């Protein structure tokens, strides 16, 4: 009895020992800085000279037009980006899931390839592909789709489109891999039964594939949302936030506030909490939507 208890105690201590490094690391580099950011958000000043200013930063947030632009840009990326990426990824994976398809592994590898590039490297490549005398314009002009070059990078509207195209290129294959592997776990007899019942491809997709893939669609939509809300590398390397602030994202605004303009760490922390809040709210909404459809 007694030895059993002490063994339990020993095991319990061993358990804590195994996880201790991870707990220390996450507390030190995630939770402690989060708390620091919260305290910082009530302070203002230049560089290291910060003093407590209460809710001033939060008041500033509501009248800050650059912040408003950054938020609306980020949401524009989100609203177009996430659905396009998910639908395209799903569509491609359903086509690729056909075992009679030839060159399957070639198509799969090719479409997944963009995911191995670094965000910085592909951004620089896209910046040149979409420059006014770049390959994309030359290609479109040769096909007579357009008469004169589109100002992809320097026009406020087209610059946003360029960012969206770039991000779609980079991440669609990433989502596709998740769908593809879940599709392979679906029992083919379900589709056969549906075909016998006279269901066409369209009905099969919406009545069988989508419902069965729902957990993975939820997972990819949440990770894509979190990723898009933090978008930085592409903006920094394709447009630098310009023209004007036309492509500025929230992360880039935080970076500028901290390290580019005269550094205001307090206000930067306040802006960064807006992303935390958005991620929480959007994740809850996505869980709710998925949960309700689950019935």
């Amino acid at each position, binding site marked *: 009895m007694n030895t059993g208890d002490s063994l339990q105690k020993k*095991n*319990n201590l*061993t*358990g*804590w*020992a*195994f*996880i201790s*490094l*991870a707990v220390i*690391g*996450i507390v030190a*580099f*995630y*939770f*402690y*800085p*989060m708390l620091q*950011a919260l305290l*910082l958000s009530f302070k203002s000043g230049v560089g290291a000279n910060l003093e407590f200013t209460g809710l001033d930063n939060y008041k500033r947030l509501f009248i800050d037009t650059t912040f408003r632009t950054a938020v609306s840009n980020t949401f524009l990326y989100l609203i177009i980006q996430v659905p396009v990426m998910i639908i395209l990824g799903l569509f491609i994976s359903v086509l*690729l899931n056909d075992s009679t398809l030839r060159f399957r592994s*070639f*198509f799969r590898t*090719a*479409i997944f*390839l963009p995911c*191995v*590039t*670094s*965000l*910085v*490297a592909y*951004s*620089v*490549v896209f*910046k*040149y592909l979409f420059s006014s*005398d770049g*390959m994309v314009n030359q290609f479109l002009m040769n096909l007579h789709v357009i008469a004169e070059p589109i100002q992809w990078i320097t026009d406020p509207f087209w610059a946003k489109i360029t960012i969206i195209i770039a991000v779609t*290129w980079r991440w669609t294959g*990433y989502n596709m*891999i*998740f769908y593809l*592997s879940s599709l392979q776990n679906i029992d083919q007899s379900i589709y056969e039964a549906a075909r016998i019942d006279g269901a066409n491809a369209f009905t099969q997709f919406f009545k069988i594939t989508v419902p069965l893939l729902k957990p993975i669609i939820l*997972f990819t939509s949440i990770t894509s949302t*979190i990723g898009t809300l933090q978008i*930085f*590398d592409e903006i*920094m*390397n394709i447009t*630098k936030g310009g023209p004007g602030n036309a492509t500025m994202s929230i*992360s880039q605004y*935080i*970076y500028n506030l901290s*390290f580019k303009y005269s550094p205001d760490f307090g206000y930067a*922390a306040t802006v*960064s909490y807006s*992303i*935390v809040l958005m*991620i929480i709210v959007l994740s809850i909404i996505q869980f709710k939507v998925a949960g309700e459809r689950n019935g």
Partner: protein
Amino acid sequence: MAKAKAKRIFTYVFLSIVAFVSIFPFFWMLVSSTNASVDVTKGRLLPGSVFLDNFNKLLDSTNLVQALGNSAIVSVISTILALLIGSLAGYGFEVYRTKSRDIVFNILLLSMMIPFAALMVPLYRMFATISGFAPFIGINTMAAVILPTITTAFLIFFFRQNTKMFPKEMLEAGRIDGLSEIGIFLKIYMPTMKTTYAAAAIITFMSSWNNYLWPLVVLQTPDQQTIPLLISNLGSSYSPDYGVIMTAIVIATLPTAIVFFIMQKHFVAGMVGSVK
């Protein structure tokens, strides 16, 4: 029948277009690295013969070798430490499972929702403070780049999920043989879980090799910069030499592309395993 055939044709045409769009930037980047800047602007799509010239210009105008070395140091050390910490924790949470540790686990998972943008400023201030008494781990050091990246809830979660498949009888066998608990982990668990470690290593190495924002914040001198910083600087220069820049991008992409092609199966298994 005709309808099925039309569907077939559509599938091939559609997938070919998507594959072309996916591959073209790689093709263009490779071809451009062998062409002079003027030819790149003209839209030349045939391989040229000036790759070595571009490469030499790159060596002369940048700290390429040093940046590659810095990236290698950061990525290798980060990967080793991250795998060690992540696997110890994943193993600990699964093998010594208790209610209180489950609560701790769920709290750690919450850190996955925290955006890096929210951590950037406090982390920078933390390392600036550390610089005062321990300059070797403060601002502008490799240690400062590495430290915040080595504990990730993702890896803890990943190892815990995979530990569920680890045969528990092997634990008992180890205990009967008189191995200590850490001995079981090192001598039985680690060798058994080789493929899990391989998948985790690829994902961690890639994200570390490609990390941009935190090194951009914390590294301040050219001799400390990593490959993504070097490319970003080249890309934003006023008179870009396109051939040279593409050469740099090819060299920077090569390590991760090679890792991907050799270990494609593990990589995909790792990504998918992470959500099962």
